């Protein structure tokens, strides 16, 4: 069954979506959408470095993303620039650096489109293993630091005063983001990774009543978007990565539709009056 490229694509996409959903919630809560872009843009630099140094692409992308993420943290701490300027600067500098470095590789032909938009139908057995092992580690670590990371998201001082080490949680979160970018790049591509992080989380926000519930919903909604997008791309012969993002966006719109919205609004009202 795993020999069928379509089955492998489904498994890979669902695996990435299950990890991206919960992490995406933190991106939404912390208003870090631009941060996701920064990391994914710098992923291209990682790809180029991997070709130049003849090392594993996923590892190289993780390395570059982690370096960028940690420098964002360090710069945020003592720079006089706002976070969005800082992120914009890093995003485009690293993207430009990647493109410039690409020009030096005259001997190697790189399928730039594959990295920009993903190539989920070319997922190998090894890719699958990387996604599920890497993704499993990310979820396990996230589970472990959940309370500290969430408390730090609400208020850093409060978390620190009550002994939760928010600094450590933030660094771990940055590294988890780097892992997710590295393993999901092949699925939806550098340009669309942020969508896979944010859209399912934003959709889950409309439905969830608590942070943990929102994380679980985001994972499920992401998985649904992957399955729907891949079948859609098979049916209508559309590019797979963008199809996944389009179906995620369609889910978001579906949740906003009046029928769903009204029934949702009624539920909490009844609950409140019964108390």
């Amino acid at each position: 069954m795993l020999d069928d490229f379509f089955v492998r694509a489904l498994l890979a996409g669902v695996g990435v979506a299950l990890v991206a959903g919960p992490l995406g919630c933190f991106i939404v809560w912390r208003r870090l959408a631009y941060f996701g872009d920064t990391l994914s843009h710098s992923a291209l630099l990682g790809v180029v470095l991997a070709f130049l140094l003849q090392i594993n692409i996923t590892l190289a992308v993780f390395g570059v993303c982690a370096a960028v993420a940690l420098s964002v943290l360090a710069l945020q701490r003592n720079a006089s620039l706002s976070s969005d300027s800082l992120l914009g600067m890093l995003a485009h500098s690293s993207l430009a650096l990647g493109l410039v470095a690409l020009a030096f590789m005259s001997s190697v032909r790189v399928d730039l489109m594959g990295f920009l938009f993903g190539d989920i139908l070319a997922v190998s057995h090894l890719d699958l293993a990387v996604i599920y092992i890497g993704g499993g580690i990310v979820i396990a670590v996230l589970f472990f630091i959940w309370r500290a990371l969430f408390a730090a998201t609400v208020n850093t001082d409060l978390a620190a005063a009550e002994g939760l080490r928010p600094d450590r949680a933030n660094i771990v979160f940055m590294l988890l983001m780097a892992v997710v970018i590295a393993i999901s790049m092949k699925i939806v591509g550098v340009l669309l990774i942020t969508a896979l992080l944010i859209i399912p989380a934003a959709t889950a926000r409309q439905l969830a009543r608590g942070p943990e519930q929102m994380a679980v919903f985001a994972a499920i909604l992401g998985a649904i978007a992957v399955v729907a997008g891949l079948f859609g791309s098979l049916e209508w012969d559309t590019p797979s990565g963008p199809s996944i993002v389009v179906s995620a966006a369609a889910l978001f719109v579906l949740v906003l539709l009046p029928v769903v919205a009204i029934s949702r609004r009624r539920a909490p009202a009844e609950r409140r009056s019964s108390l």
Partner: protein
Amino acid sequence: MLDRSSNLVTLENAGLNRGGAWLVRGVDLTVRGGEVVTLIGPNGAGKSTTAKIALGLLAPDEGSAKRAPGLSVGYVPQKLSIDWTLPLSVARFMGLTNRIAAAEIKEALDLVGIAHLAGSEVRHLSGGEFQRALLARAIARKPDLLVLDEPVQGVDFSGEIALYELISNIRTSLGCGILMISHDLHVVMASTDSVVCLNGHVCCQGTPHAVAESSEYRELFGGRAAATLAVYEHAHDHTHLSDGTVQHADGSVTEYCHPDDGHHHDDEHGEADHAG
């Protein structure tokens, strides 16, 4: 388990310098278990800064801040805004920094008078309700030390008095130390063991009685502030002497007040005042 009778937090000559200016300097401060220490002072006096130094959130540039090892803290920060993107019920908010049993959550919410809001989203609470939730959350942790930065801001008048009474009762029931920042001088003076009056430096400190008598305090807050205190200064069963010791009604002298001593106002009398 921490020995709460010892010093929970000790600041010695602590100061914080930012960009060449001292936000606060030369602060000596000790909080013990079962004791309420209140920081008062005008805006920009360094009250919140001092609290953050005590909490370890800011490292002093001068002097030292020591916390008892293993100290557990409940903190009500001066400002806390919940982003509207966070789906967060009051009950979940209570367990923000550690797991708390449902019964204890209910108990704490009951104490501050918002048990009926347990299922509500935090971002839908009014300012006063949210302030109560913050206080409940800190209490529910049953910490060794409570640090309350203007804990009753935005709370209605009758609620304010009830909450101060609650805070005063908690240190007895939990046996915890409380470091509080407040602008409500009249209440503070009535329910505090020790007052530190800040104005960039410690302008005066000691028992509420001693502070209110000091000329620095009168200069800083004016004669009227001293007069409000008089309302509450009646029928105490012990007197704080100038050397810091306490003379009790029976004539005995001890080093500190005891929890079972009458405080700086007669309880019954105080209640009648509050009701009226």
